């Protein structure tokens, strides 16, 4: 059976101005405007967002599980890279 689904889009929502966008989920839509509308209808019905990004899923480039060792493990034992001793803007987002 052929795939008749519209293209997939990833949705990112921002809770309030200034804070980072968070991945909310994905939707199907035939074009940008309807992607934005579908994202609005599916992911901001309960006052979750003040701004929405939609991105065609095909444009998301992801690392793979095989990358895990070389990408992320080297940072495990480098405590000095953590800005633990002063406040960072990100800390207020928690």
């Amino acid at each position, binding site marked *: 059976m052929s795939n008749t689904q*519209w293209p997939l889009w990833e949705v990112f929502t921002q809770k309030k101005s200034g804070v980072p966008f968070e991945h909310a989920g994905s*939707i*199907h*839509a*035939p074009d940008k*405007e*309807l992607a934005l*509308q*579908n994202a*609005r*209808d*599916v992911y901001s*019905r309960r006052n979750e967002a003040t701004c929405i990004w939609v991105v065609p899923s095909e444009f998301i480039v992801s690392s793979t599980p095989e990358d895990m060792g070389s990408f992320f493990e080297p940072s495990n034992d480098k405590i000095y890279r953590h800005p633990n001793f002063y406040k960072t803007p990100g800390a207020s987002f928690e």
Partner: protein
Amino acid sequence: MNANQNKSLINYCLRLGDSSLVLGQRLGEWCGHGPILEEDIALTNISLDLIGQARAFYTYAGELENKGKTEDDYAFFRDEREYYNLLICEQPNGDFGQTMVRQFLYSAFCYYFYSALKKSSDARLAALADKSLKEVTYHLRHSSEWLIRLGDGTAESHRRVADGVADLWCFTGDMFVMDDVDSALIKDGIAVDLNALKMPWENKVKEVFQLAKLSLPENVFMIQGSRDGKHTEHLGHLLTEMQALPRAFPGAQW
């Protein structure tokens, strides 16, 4: 406010509430039947916006009438002839194209109507209009975009929305009918002069129809009657379904 004006204002609130409720009920029929999941949610979102508007107008009507009536009394215990919703709102969903045509024609009207009602001298109506305007602005955007895509889409999608326009155009005149209720309220700046909305509404329709490659129907006999509670055959069936439970079990609770 004198007694006549109070009576007129109650009727005015019922008109607005009834149109919102009836179209909200119609859109609710799409729940679980939308063409795609996202659109299913969109249609029921719009439905809930409209039902919310209806509740606010009924609550205000109940306060004005001052007989202890609740929003449920207005929604569930009035008959067809006591409903004043616009005829276009009660028309069946048809296919998705037809539903979008109905939504577009009505939302465009609401957009200009609430923009004007925002300036009402009645503070409560003005506040309800302000809130409703934000909602219908999205309804208009949503339905406009769909109408353009379907009208300027495939031969099949074009035929469906063109059929929708042909079926529904005769109910657009009903939106602009004014009677004694309007004139009693217009002179104090409470109600909206609907004549002033005709041009902007028509221009908006023309603009979107052009993008949708649809033509504006001409010389159509306009069916009216909503101001007098006279309806097409569809409202009775809708109310029968909507009111069945509260009428069979008055005061029933979830």
